[in-house]
């Protein structure tokens, strides 16, 4: 009893720290930097989604960039064509991507491992072409520009945003919006993982045969996992569109899918706490590499080397490291003295 109480207190403490960090981070950095943090938040949300699918349910997906595209374009299309307010499109963007995720999940039932990788890889590669093809809706190669086509629907166009009487810059607004959604998304994922659904997912990951023998409806849960991760990717894509105020096929290439996957694995598959680190890794490493030297090829070289080194040192990602660090703490809490 006492151990459980102590454990809960620890988690509450960490949660409290997180909230404080969330609230005060923008004060520690320049105004523009809040925008960078907001961008990291987009990765954070997408990574949570991919982790639910790959880390917890064992289904590999190389196509999360494509799901983000669905979300981003839903938002952009609603703003530009239907004149919706940009922030109100977020739920719909998540839903659209969730549906597409569900549809991907269906053929994925018959494919596993390598073949699922190819299928999702093919989707990621095909997405820019598909976006260019249906140009009536997507603006084709030009994409959609929210600021140009529907400026009154862009929150913060004047530079400041006022919520409940409290005024802030557009950059701060984007940060608070993105990370608020991120933290809520994290909480939901945490609850899922902790609960019966999470147990089923892990059962599917660890052994499909055993799970099926235990009566678990593999088909249902796999497609559910795809749909859920799709929702997260869609919301991330929507926030990306809102932050950058444009969508374009060139943004949603296979490279984006790779970045999300790298962030997820670096953050730690099957572990939620490392996700923040994974998001920061993919957000800041390319910039840092460019800062080291802008000679052709060097930033990519440094970036690639960093990924390799991190994976060699931390094969289970940051999550694995955190678990190892936390183990003495938690064992002491949970073991009889």
């Amino acid at each position, binding site marked *: 009893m006492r151990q459980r109480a102590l454990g809960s207190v620890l988690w509450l403490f960490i949660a409290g720290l997180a909230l404080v960090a969330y609230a005060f981070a923008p004060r520690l950095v320049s105004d*523009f930097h809040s925008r960078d943090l907001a961008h990291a938040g987009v990765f954070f949300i997408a990574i949570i989604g991919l982790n639910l699918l790959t880390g917890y349910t064992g289904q590999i997906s190389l196509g999360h960039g494509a799901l983000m595209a669905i979300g981003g374009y839903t938002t952009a299309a609603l703003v530009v064509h239907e004149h919706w307010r940009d922030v109100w499109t977020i739920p719909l963007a998540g839903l659209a991507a969730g549906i597409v995720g569900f549809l991907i999940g269906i053929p994925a039932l018959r494919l596993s491992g390598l073949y699922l990788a190819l299928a999702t890889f093919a989707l990621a590669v095909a997405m820019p072409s598909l976006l260019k093809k249906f140009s009536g809706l997507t603006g084709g190669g030009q994409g959609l520009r929210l600021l140009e086509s529907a*400026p009154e629907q862009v929150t913060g166009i004047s530079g400041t945003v006022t919520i409940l009487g409290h005024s802030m810059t557009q950059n701060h607004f984007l940060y608070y919006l993105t990370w608020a959604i991120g933290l809520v998304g994290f909480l939901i994922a945490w609850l899922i993982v902790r609960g019966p659904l999470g147990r089923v997912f892990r059962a599917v990951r660890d052994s499909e045969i055993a799970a099926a023998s235990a009566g678990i409806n593999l088909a249902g849960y796999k497609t559910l996992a795809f749909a859920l991760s799709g929702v997260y990717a869609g919301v991330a894509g929507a926030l990306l569109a809102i932050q950058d105020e444009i969508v374009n096929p060139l943004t949603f*290439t296979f490279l984006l899918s790779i970045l999300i996957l790298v962030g997820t694995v670096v953050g730690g598959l099957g572990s939620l706490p490392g996700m923040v680190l994974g998001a920061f890794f993919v957000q800041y490493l390319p910039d840092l590499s460019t800062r080291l030297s802008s000679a052709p090829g060097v930033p990519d070289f440094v970036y690639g080397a960093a990924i390799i080194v991190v994976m060699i040192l931390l094969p289970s990602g940051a999550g694995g490291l955190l678990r190892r660090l936390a183990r003495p703490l938690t064992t002491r809490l949970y073991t009889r003295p």
Partner: protein
Amino acid sequence: MARKLHVFLGAVVALGLAAVASGAGTPGVTSSEVLIGGTTPLSGPASAYQSVARGAAAYFKYVNAKGGVNKRKIKYLYKDDAYDPAKTSEKTRELVQQDKVFAIFNSLGTEQNQATRAYLNAIKVPQLFVASGATTWGKDSKTYPWTIGYQPNYQAEGTIYGRYVAKTSPKARIGVLYQNDDYGKDLLKGLVNGLRSKAKLIVSKQNYDVNDADVQSQIARLKAARVNTLMLFATPKFAIQSYVYAHKLGWKPTVYVNAVSSAANIMGLSTVGTSKKQTNGSLSIVFLKDPTDPHWTKDPGVKLYRSIMKRYKGGNPNDVYAVYGMSAAHTFVQALKKAGKNPTRAGIMKAANNLSIKNDPFLLPGMTVKTGAGDHFPLDQAKLERYVNGHWVVFGGLFRVR
């Protein structure tokens, strides 16, 4: 839509963004320095175009070494957008809000610059000498008065080809290979405009995606349509492929190759891969001095270019994109001089809209960089050239390419 933006933003600018636009001192300008910035693809598949930025940077270092402009050195920051318009949007905001540049200069790419145009015009930051051949930079200057382009636009180039074919080969069977983005489509549109009533001479149009591996299939289709005049509206990799695949099919049409892919070193690769006969007779337009063309080896402008590239580490001197960048930088310097001892953003915009530069060492002799009321296209002249026995020979006079 755009007019709505104009009206709306006119009202909005008065609010919070006034601090960015004006204020006590002009952002980016100190007593010793003028800070400008732009975006360019330093990584990713389009990274070959970064020479546009590097060439310009080398030229600014040269000017600084001679004392700068009105005792100020020009500091040019260029950031990587990996050719992704979303990143262009982010980095441009960073340049404006964080680095507080005086103006955005020489950013590369059509979609990339379109992504930031509305924002820059809303906050009245000059978007100078956009490195893209789209028509909109000059055509839409009433809606976006703070934006101006530089190079001759693709549509105009296509028009020249169309007019020339209509005049000299009225019975040709034209086939077009074009990249399926604005660049290729603009060239095609221009071609159709130039052909006018003879547009039906186009018997086959094949496009390709920049991510394709090869265009063999498209070339075969063009040959099957019995095309005898081939328009290559394609980037260097695919232009070279087109020559080689045509050769492999035993097909030798008359080729019009667009300016982006007609640099002498590219044509050299096309010839080596096929035969002298395959590339002989190809046509193109040109407005820059090509450093790999033996014709210009002793030219003082090209010599200056090479010495600057060497001294200030501008990169590969055989890269014609670097020449372009230097020309753009040269024009910026003239505009800055014209903006006076205390340059403001409005001032340099006015200077950019009233250019008359006759001595650009990197452009063809006789060319003028000219803008004015009703003319927002700084470079709108070019010459036709024909590929004869391994090198380009200019013929005819200077065309107006608008």
